[in-house]
């Protein structure tokens, strides 16, 4: 189906179903129950899932296929956000022109940065991309303030021209982002018994775009172009002596992946029309790397999983405070309860980054293939038990 083989079609359908049914899947607990805090079916959170999914899918095209580790990808995200907000300020609040512009501008940025950075490989490439991203970040904070609005961040205001729209909405506020009139913030709530499921227009727009982005990435992975990118990772020397020029391939991958990041940045601004320089900081780049690795670099599903995983736990973990911990461990004797709370405390709430760092170290050390590899290992172990005979590993996977 859609030019994909059977396995990829199944994968695509699963991802599509999971994404489109996210408002149900992420909202398993009744609204009033104690566990409701673990629900993640809120519009802004779900939007973040899919937007970071796009980001990680794009990063994976570069890192997963070619092995070039970019530490400056957040720059494209930031550039995409700024472009989109400018489009909202100047043209209209329709998200289509904004997204198109952010993809184009991010692509151009990636072309320039990639052209220079890809002259080197390995650690040098990582440092060069890092240097470019930090440069963009520093500039956005300082001299480029007329474009970026410095520390405050770029926002839409009431005196923006918006030549194809209105400067001020009827209610006196700045107009909201929309898709031909369909407002991004609009949410329908479906009350089913004790559950309240939220369906948000913005989320579904992002979700459909993510599915398209995922589909394109599957096509790239399976195409001769994708094969060449994997060849770059495997042996550049042989590639050259096989009549292939590696640089255009890596540059193409870099630009495509930059455009994905730009798309994500544009969508981020479309959901919430503001853009700040902190989106370009190198810790943000690190987060993109982290998602991809955690999920499984070089696999199709990995980046989506990684992005969802990190964003979900970021949300959940940072919400847990000592009171919640005490209710969890309430069945324990008092002394033990306090002890457990003290032990767990540093890892939750504001300590989420600590957990993330540890998790990251564990994954890189023991599970370089990320969650996807973990899943495969478990599946393999289970099937081995069933059949009681080791299967030969499938090389095509």
């Amino acid at each position: 189906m859609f030019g994909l083989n059977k396995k990829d079609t199944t994968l695509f359908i699963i991802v599509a179903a999971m994404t489109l049914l996210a408002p149900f899947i992420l909202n398993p607990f009744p609204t009033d129950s104690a566990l409701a805090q673990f629900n993640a079916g809120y519009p802004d959170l779900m939007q973040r899932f899919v937007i970071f999914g796009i980001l990680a899918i794009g990063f994976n095209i570069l890192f997963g296929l070619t092995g070039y580790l970019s530490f400056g990808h957040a720059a494209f995200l930031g550039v995409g956000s700024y472009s989109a907000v400018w489009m909202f300020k100047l043209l209209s609040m329709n998200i289509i022109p904004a997204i198109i512009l952010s993809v184009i501008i991010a692509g151009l940025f990636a072309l320039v940065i990639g052209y220079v950075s890809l002259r080197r490989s390995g650690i040098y490439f990582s440092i060069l991309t890092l240097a470019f991203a930090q440069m963009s970040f520093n500039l956005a904070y300082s001299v480029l303030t007329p474009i970026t609005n410095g520390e405050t961040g770029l926002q839409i205001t009431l005196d923006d021209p918006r030549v194809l729209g209105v400067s001020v909405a009827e209610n006196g506020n700045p107009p909201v982002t929309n898709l031909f009139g369909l407002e991004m913030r609009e949410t329908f709530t479906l009350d089913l018994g004790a559950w309240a499921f939220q369906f948000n227009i913005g989320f579904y727009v992002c979700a459909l775009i993510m599915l398209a982005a995922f589909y394109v990435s599957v096509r790239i992975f399976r195409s001769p172009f994708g094969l060449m990118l994997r060849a770059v990772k495997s042996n550049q020397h042989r590639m050259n002596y096989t009549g292939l020029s590696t640089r255009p391939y890596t540059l193409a991958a870099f630009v495509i992946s930059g455009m994905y990041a730009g798309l994500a940045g544009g969508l981020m601004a479309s959901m919430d029309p503001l853009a700040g320089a902190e989106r370009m900081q190198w810790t943000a780049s690190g987060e993109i790397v982290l998602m991809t690795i955690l999920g499984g670099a070089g696999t199709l599903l990995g980046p989506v999983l990684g992005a969802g995983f990190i964003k979900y736990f970021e949300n959940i973990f940072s919400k847990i405070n000592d009171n919640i911990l005490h209710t969890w461990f309430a069945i324990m004797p008092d002394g033990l309860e306090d002890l457990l709370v003290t032990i767990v405390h540093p890892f939750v709430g504001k300590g989420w980054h600590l957990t993330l760092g540890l998790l990251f170290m564990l994954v890189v050390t023991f599970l370089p293939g990320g969650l996807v590899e973990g899943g495969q290992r478990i599946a393999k172990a289970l099937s081995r038990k069933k059949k009681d005979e080791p299967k030969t590993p499938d090389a095509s996977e």
Partner: protein
Amino acid sequence: MDAILLQILNGLDKGSAYALIALGLTLIFGTLGVVNFAHGALFMVGAFVAVTVQRLFNWSFETVDPTKTDFLGNPAKVKTPYVESWFGPEVGAAMIDWSVPLAILFAIPIMIVVGFVMERGLIKHFYKRPHADQILVTFGLAIVVQEIVKAYYGANPIPTPAPDVFKGSFDFGPLLGLDTSLAYPYWRLVYFGFSAAIIGAVFAFLQFTTFGLVVRAGMADRETVGLLGINIDKKFTIMFGIAAAVAGLAGVMYAPINSPNYHMGMDFLVLSFVVVVVGGMGSLPGAVLAGFMLGILESIASMNVIKELIPGIDQIIIYVVAILILLTRPRGLMGRKGVMED
């Protein structure tokens, strides 16, 4: 002219910090072949050793002094630091005042142990893994160290003053025969001198001891040295400890210049990597040279005259230089062939 001189002086202390971190990074690159993204964290840990020592020395107990009363007429409570009661008020006060330099004595063993634990516990499992994995795992470690420090010390910068003697500035103006004054804080002079001493010590150590000879040989050709029956791994563990100590000492002494916060390591790390790359990966003199060069360039670029000429240049000068150097001299200023090249 004197403005430029002042900026060069200003660049020296930042340059010293870059040079010290870059030196440690290069030692680890060169000997172990590992790209250590957690090296900035070691610098930060060093700074927090200074913070901790200062806090420990200030640790006090309360006594009620019957001879004094507070403004309500109640007997006043007086805080006495333990060090003052143990070593006498004068020695104790001096210890508190000199806590940052004294922290060096604590930092050396602490950092060496931290270095050993890091190398034996984590890094050694990554010698044979791709550089990307090394970057990623040390990046994770850096986050962990950073977050632990944040959990204990909070997110705000903690002022850590230098001894009183070093407060104030030295005027270079008359010394250089200038009419204008050229004030330069004493502690920064101390920092520069200290860094120069450490750099000198590391070079002397590598140059004049047998241990250093083996390490240098190992940097040039690890396999051959291994074949000679020398236990190079053990030597390299020690080297890692030394690199950690150098970074830590750089941090201890930097604490009075910039109040330590948990992310100072990351800030310095990014720049130090750029420094290493500019200097030439695997070249110790290159790291030092590039450290000072970029520190000074950064200072000069922040002069108003230059900022008016090219707006924003002070923010990006280091990166611009790095990009230009990498593109024209791929191996950096003093890089050797075959280091970290695929």
